[in-house]
């Protein structure tokens, strides 16, 4: 990486923390919501009828997927090996 001073690193961290703080403030208004990834809820290209999969089907898939996962955390999330660039 290009050489950058301590000031630059601190400025970046301040900016990143500001993004996280702004998000945290916004999350205060949030009631339970599902996540929106892309617009898969309008059209599911992997299904012949193109209809979005029902929530129960997605949940069942998640359970099956995690049952096959090599490693999970205590909340049932898939654990993967940390990449080299993660300090």
């Amino acid at each position, binding site marked *: 990486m*290009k050489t950058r001073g301590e000031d630059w690193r601190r400025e970046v961290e301040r*900016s990143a923390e*500001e993004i996280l703080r*702004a998000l945290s403030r916004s999350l205060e208004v*949030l009631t339970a919501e599902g996540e929106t990834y892309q*617009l898969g809820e*309008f059209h599911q*290209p992997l299904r012949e009828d193109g209809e979005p999969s029902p929530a129960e089907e997605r949940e069942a898939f998640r359970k099956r997927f995690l049952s096959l996962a090599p490693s999970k955390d205590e909340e049932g999330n898939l654990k993967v090996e940390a990449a080299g660039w*993660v300090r």
Partner: protein
Amino acid sequence: MGTLEKLEALRGGDLSPVENLERILRKVEEMNGKLNAFLQLNPRAREEAEEVERRIRRGEGGRLSGLTVAVKSNINVRGLKATCASRVLEDYVSTYDAEVISRIRREGGVIVGMTNMDEFACGSSGETSAFGPTQNPSAPGYIPGGSSSGSAAAVAAGLCDLALGTDTGGSIRNPASHCGVAGLKPTYGLVPRHGLIDLGMSLDQIGPLAPDVHGLALLLEVIAGENPREGMMLGVQRVSFPNLEEGVRGMKVGVCPQFSSLTDPRINGLVEEKVEVLRELGARVEEVSLPHLEHALSAYYLIVSVEFFSATRRYDGRKYGKRIEEACGEEVLRRIAIGSYISRKEYRDRYYQRALQLRTLIRKELFSAFQRVEVLVGPTVPKLPHRLGEKLSPLEMYAYDYLTVPANLAGICAGVVKAGEVGGIPVGIQVQGPPLAEEKVLRVMRALEESGCR
């Protein structure tokens, strides 16, 4: 000459594709040194125009019949450089055509060249390109907006007939507004993304820029529609907009106080005049509230930071160009470092997942507004563009995106057309519609365009 008149001249033989290209190239030669809108011209453009000329003689000119198209430098065009306006990819020559480029060629479009942009689309001003900033031809001395700066400037200066841009958080609409041209971010999943060098995979869309709304509609008709090679498309085979002149009589148009509360009053003044025009043309104007709109920006910057960081990991110096951290500019490096910092915290605090939940809230709110009205009309950018070279803090720069990011978060369509000018600087009005409501959005834009600007 408007896009449709030029198309008629090309089809009727009054103007040949080669003549059209040569006129365009003369203008490029005359103006590009100053504007810096193009980074590379297509050396095969004349050959391609000649081929289209032969096709027109055979009655196979296609929908574009020799219109010239400029392409943002983050879309692959075989044989041309897709640099993303970065030293990282300065020697990267595309080995294939993006799906949208294949469609443009099939319909007789002639690719003029690759346009300047903010480096890796990191910016809203057109100033972060490694190859120098783009000038705003409509307001000299001011930024053209970004990140599709070169595409908007090329359209505004007449250096192409139509252009492709990409929009992650407003990158088509923002420069369209500042340069006084028309631009449209299509519904997510309507236009193929194959061949696009992405910035934020869940937000990016390729879309058209044009001197007029008919030009936008024409290019969108050409590039939109299902691509079987892509998973995230909406299954729409093709689109067609034959009713753009039908007007807005009886249409329910929404205005939202949250759009105007943080916007420069001079911009609001122009927007209000245009809303009045729509009312006079027979639209039913209704106020709708989007109480959580202000949270869109915080969700957007979290999502885009994480997705951008992830997208840049492929530039490790082995396969594509140079190692990004060693060759990129300040703003890109800053955003990589921010994305890295947030990604490190991600596992513990699940910020990305929570930002996606916030995104759902914004989407639901917009969708609920679209239950009451057919389109939403409002400002595009909350402030006038700054002077080229003026220093802004990152947070001031992010404020440019405040009114455009909700459409990307919700995956809806949104277009911009010129509303007027403030002190000689163009100002665009934004029209947003629900998913796949491009026809309505374009109809409203056409009515606004037809009403003229003061």
